[in-house]
């Protein structure tokens, strides 16, 4: 394409061929000449530039329609799955990091009537990373604010983290997308919308008019779009609700025996019972509130009722941030660590040695690396931005995450332990407890969700392990969902409907059909969606009587 024919702010983007995702789990080929990089000159956040970018996105969509090409926005290329890939091209969004504070006249009357103020909101462009957002909120705004929830690391763009269901471990708060209260979505060459819940309006007509958008205030539509992995158009701007800056104080408990009492306390979220089992775990008070709960487990150094071979429990408590506290987001001092090629080398060794490696190599490997993989202790309270920092990209790592109802979490752990005995897993598992989401296809869909994360070296043996775990959960009728942005290759149309239920999937599809016309739907449909039956081309194949939340009659796939 000739650069002379591109609008100002649109540059050609030539992805490597083949293109590799950031974690090097797959390679992909984009259509040559179909990708663009969107840029904004200058260092000030101007509405004029923001609206010009809206027009640029519309131009890209019109080109895609004209050329019969699909497109997808690409943030930091973080996802482990191909959820964000397409056969056509990409619009890279890392250059789109304008940010705006809404004035009082930008707030909906109902929002202000609820006691909220303009300080509670920030409007950011899609390419703003969580890291960037933390710096803005914690260091540059007055009064200082912070995000409500974060993933384990902060390199994702806000749009990407939102769209795939990045979750963290905020026990009472929810996932990253649960603090998004408004979306500006470009839906076609001539259309773009401001989308928010009717039950929780935040923006005034003045704000919507400033963007030049059409307002849609609809709970179902918002809940469908907020976790839609790029399928509902290009999310250009997000309104995020924030909190006054707080600190997170860590209380960690190593070598916690896995007992029936612990299982009961965790599965029922009985905090007094948990505190009795974890001496030193504080009680909630005015100045200290439990925020984050996480459990780590070494599958090769674990024994029930044994302290020495027990669990590692991490909690974070929210506490007031002193006015004089200065957050520091500077890079941390470097330490000796393993090189970027090590996971790949381990992967090759596992491939070559096969079952021999499984039996003799994996356990010592995991035991050696387990302690280094655990989050380092945080002796002093820090902000959420300082706590969940940038994770250095390591290639050829495999990460899979499944969500279960908290009451079922240890049944899922038992499945993992059993599969590990048959097929050793070159990695570790962690449990993070997250409040359930309203998002239609948010994978943290259980009211009290627990995300079981499995992180290891990306090798066929690891992927086989993941698949065995998933299939065993189904065989035992334990309902679960899979993280859209992590390894989830077992997903198909039938599974998605089983995981979320017919009503949710049909509702999501109906919203998409209502929001996007046929041309736009074609542009924003990719192979992943077709595989999952989310392109709208498949009818339900699951019998109406098939249960979603799991009972003895669930059909194993």
């Amino acid at each position, binding site marked *: 394409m000739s650069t002379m024919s591109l609008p100002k702010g649109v540059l050609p983007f030539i992805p*490597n061929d083949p293109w*590799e*995702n*950031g*974690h*090097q789990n797959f390679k992909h080929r984009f259509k040559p000449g179909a990708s663009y*990089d969107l*840029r*904004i*000159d*200058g*260092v*000030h*956040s*101007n*509405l004029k530039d923001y609206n010009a970018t809206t027009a640029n996105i519309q131009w890209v969509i019109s080109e895609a329609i004209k050329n019969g090409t699909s497109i997808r926005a*690409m*943030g*930091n*290329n*973080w996802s482990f799955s191909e959820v964000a890939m397409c056969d056509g091209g990409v619009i*890279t969004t*890392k*250059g789109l*990091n*304008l*940010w*705006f*504070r*809404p*004035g*009082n*006249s*930008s*707030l909906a009357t109902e929002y202000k009537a609820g006691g909220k103020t303009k300080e509670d909101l920030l*409007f950011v462009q899609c*390419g703003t*990373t969580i*890291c*960037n957002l933390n710096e*803005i909120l914690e260091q*540059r*705004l007055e009064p200082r604010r912070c995000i409500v929830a974060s993933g384990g690391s*902060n*390199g994702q763009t806000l749009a990407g983290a939102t769209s795939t269901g990045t979750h963290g471990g905020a026990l009472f708060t929810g996932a990253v997308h649960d603090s998004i209260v408004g979306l500006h979505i470009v839906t076609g060459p001539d259309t773009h919308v401001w989308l928010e819940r009717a039950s929780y309006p935040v923006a*005034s007509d*003045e*704000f919507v008019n*400033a*963007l030049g958008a059409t307002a849609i205030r609809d709970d179902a539509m918002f809940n469908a779009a907020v976790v839609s992995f790029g399928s509902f158009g290009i999310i250009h701007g997000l309104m995020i609700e924030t909190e006054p800056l707080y600190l997170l104080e860590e209380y960690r408990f190593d070598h916690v025996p896995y007992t029936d009492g612990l299982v009961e306390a965790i599965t029922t979220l009985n905090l007094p019972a948990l505190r009795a089992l974890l001496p030193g775990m504080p009680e909630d008070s005015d100045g200290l509130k439990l925020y984050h709960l996480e459990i780590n487990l070494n599958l090769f150094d674990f024994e029930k009722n044994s302290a020495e071979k027990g669990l590692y429990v991490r909690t974070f408590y929210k506490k007031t941030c002193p006015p004089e506290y200065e957050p520091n987001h500077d*890079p941390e001092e470097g330490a000796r660590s393993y*090189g*970027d*090629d090590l996971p790949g080398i381990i992967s090759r060794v596992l491939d070559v040695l096969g079952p021999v490696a499984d039996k003799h190599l994996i356990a010592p490997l995991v035991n050696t690396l387990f302690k280094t993989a655990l989050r380092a202790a945080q002796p002093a309270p820090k902000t959420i931005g300082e706590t969940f*920092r*940038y994770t250095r*990209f390591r*290639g*050829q790592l495999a990460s899979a995450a499944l969500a279960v109802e908290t009451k079922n979490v240890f049944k899922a752990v038992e499945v993992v332990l059993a599969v590990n005995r048959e097929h050793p897993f070159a990695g570790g598992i962690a449990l993070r407890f997250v409040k359930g989401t309203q998002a239609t296809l948010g994978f943290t869909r259980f009211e009290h969700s627990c995300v079981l994360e499995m992180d290891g070296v990306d090798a066929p043996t690891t992927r086989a392990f993941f698949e065995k775990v998933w299939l065993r959960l189904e065989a035992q009728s334990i309902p679960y969902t899979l993280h859209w942005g992590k390894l989830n290759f077992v997903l198909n149309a039938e599974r998605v409907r089983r995981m979320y239920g017919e009503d949710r999937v049909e509702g999501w599809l109906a919203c998409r059909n209502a929001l996007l016309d046929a041309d736009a739907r074609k542009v924003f449909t990719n192979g992943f969606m077709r595989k999952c039956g989310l392109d709208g081309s498949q009818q339900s194949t699951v019998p109406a009587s098939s249960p979603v939340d799991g009972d003895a009659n669930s059909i194993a796939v």
Partner: protein
Amino acid sequence: MKPLSLHGYTMLLLLITASQTSCKVSETVFSHANTDQPARGRHLSHVGKTHWSYFWGLLGNEPWAAGCQQGSDISRARVTTNPGFIIISFVSLGIAVPQKMEWDCSQPFRSGGTIGQ
């Protein structure tokens, strides 16, 4: 076919090692985690050509432009070497030293705006 001598095996091993461009040693310094491009697993967003310096640095290269956009600076820089580079540098006694650099540019640093009054 005559078996290789010890010398031959040594040269073969050196050749194989030198040809393994994926076997690299690198050091990275970064000032900021943010980049203005999607992350690439193996490389940073800007990959420079192999640069040669000669005669122990007496003949080198002028600094070249990083290509960062306005409001953005280099956030991460990586120098890589590999067995081939090391061998060339050693064999030439430092007369010819190849080097390769990669770097990221940060996201532009923006001041905030306001929408509404």
